[in-house]
């Protein structure tokens, strides 16, 4: 379970997160949407300690991110993360990208790590790309390798930061299909995305953020058919355009 309690963060004088509260239970899929600059990505980065915050706390299975005694490296092992621009290691093949952390962090043997990596490449639909460098993969393929890389650590949680917004339209589906499959398989997921089709299919809860606050929360139907704030209405009208 991830608990976010009264989380506040500033970049200098600018407040990016304002009193964010949220509880994510095991097995849930939560979708976060909102205009750019509303603090969605920053929120994800606070949860796994990639960004420090000044007030409030986040606990992951009871372990506090704010506590200076917490080993953040250890904590991140169980939270996989997928980035907008894939962020694959350019000097390594797809397979090497996936096996690095299991071998260096979990201390798995090369054989075990590669076996797992090949299973994951199979699962994300590109078993033939194991020995290809990222520069020679399409965006959709790169993002699927990135998902496999995160899954290789056998995380309990997965966070997605706009995983499809750098992709050409025809590649969005292949990435969403993998994510839908994961969500239906019981993975606990936190997804920053504007893909409303994805949200309709798997989201247990939708959070709408604006200016660093969660201004609306609810089920897909509740949010989509009956947004309460003008800001959310405007936003929905824009993304459905």
């Amino acid at each position, binding site marked *: 379970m991830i608990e976010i309690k009264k989380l506040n963060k500033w970049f200098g004088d600018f407040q990016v997160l304002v009193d964010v509260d949220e509880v994510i239970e095991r097995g849930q899929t939560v979708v976060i949407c909102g205009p750019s600059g509303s603090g969605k990505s920053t929120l994800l*980065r606070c949860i*796994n300690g*990639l960004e420090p915050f000044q007030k409030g706390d986040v606990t992951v299975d009871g372990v506090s991110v704010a506590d200076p005694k917490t080993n953040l*490296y*250890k904590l*991140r*092992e169980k*939270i*996989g*993360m997928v*980035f907008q*621009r894939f*962020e*694959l*290691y*350019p*000097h390594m093949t797809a397979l090497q990208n996936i096996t*690095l*952390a299991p071998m*260096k*962090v979990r201390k798995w043997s090369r054989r075990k790590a590669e076996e797992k990596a090949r299973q994951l490449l199979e699962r994300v639909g590109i078993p033939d790309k194991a020995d290809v*460098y990222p*520069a020679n993969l399409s965006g959709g393929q790169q993002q699927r390798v*990135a998902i496999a*890389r*995160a899954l*290789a*650590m056998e995380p309990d949680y997965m966070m997605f930061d706009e995983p499809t917004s750098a992709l050409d339209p025809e590649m969005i589906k292949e990435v969403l299909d993998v994510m839908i499959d994961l969500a239906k398989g019981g993975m606990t997921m936190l997804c920053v995305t504007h893909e409303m089709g994805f949200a309709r299919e798997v989201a247990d809860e939708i959070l709408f953020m604006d200016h660093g606050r969660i201004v609306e929360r609810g089920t897909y139907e509740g949010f989509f058919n009956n947004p309460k704030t003008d800001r959310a209405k405007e936003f929905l009208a824009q993304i459905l355009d």
Partner: protein
Amino acid sequence: MFDAVGRNFGFLMGGLWVTFQLSFFALTGGILLGMIVGLARLSKKPWIYYPVTAYVNFLRNIPLILVIFWFYFVMPILVGRSIDPFPSAVISFIIFEATYFGEIFRAGYQTISKDLVNASYATGMTYWKTARYITIPIAFRRMLPSLITQSIVTFQDTSLAFVIGLRELVRRTSIVDNLEVRSIELYGFAALVYLVVCLIGSQISHYFEEKGRKASII
């Protein structure tokens, strides 16, 4: 006309061997230390950043020959016994060249996006594991042409170690010249040897530059 060279060829080549040895240690040590210096120059911890920056700025603004001299004469006072020219020269070169390699690595690290590093952290990799497997290898490949250029400069600079009596190529050339008194031909030969080695080096640099451009792996 190169008979003076011919008569002393073995002795002179022995000097080239010393030059190669000094270059090898200077480059290996300078590059390894440079990787760390480059990281320290990007550190957000003031107690790492400021001392290392001071070290870099200090050494980059004094001539190498003074570093070699100074180290050779100061070390015996500090360690309490005389020190041979070769280890003294190796240490002087490592601490001097590391500042130049450090700046090259720093530029290389800065080409790496913050989220690429975050992607590594997000899988549980520590700062040092990320440096070892991600940041340093990528910076090394991206900066390879600059690293080779600086290595060629270092190779030429090793001739300055003759001032503390190290019998490398230039020193041995001057010893032979004292006996033979054939300065133009002897120093001309030494220059030719440096020229050939450095031209080979710059061809290697050119090859990697082209390869890097074509592969676009990085």
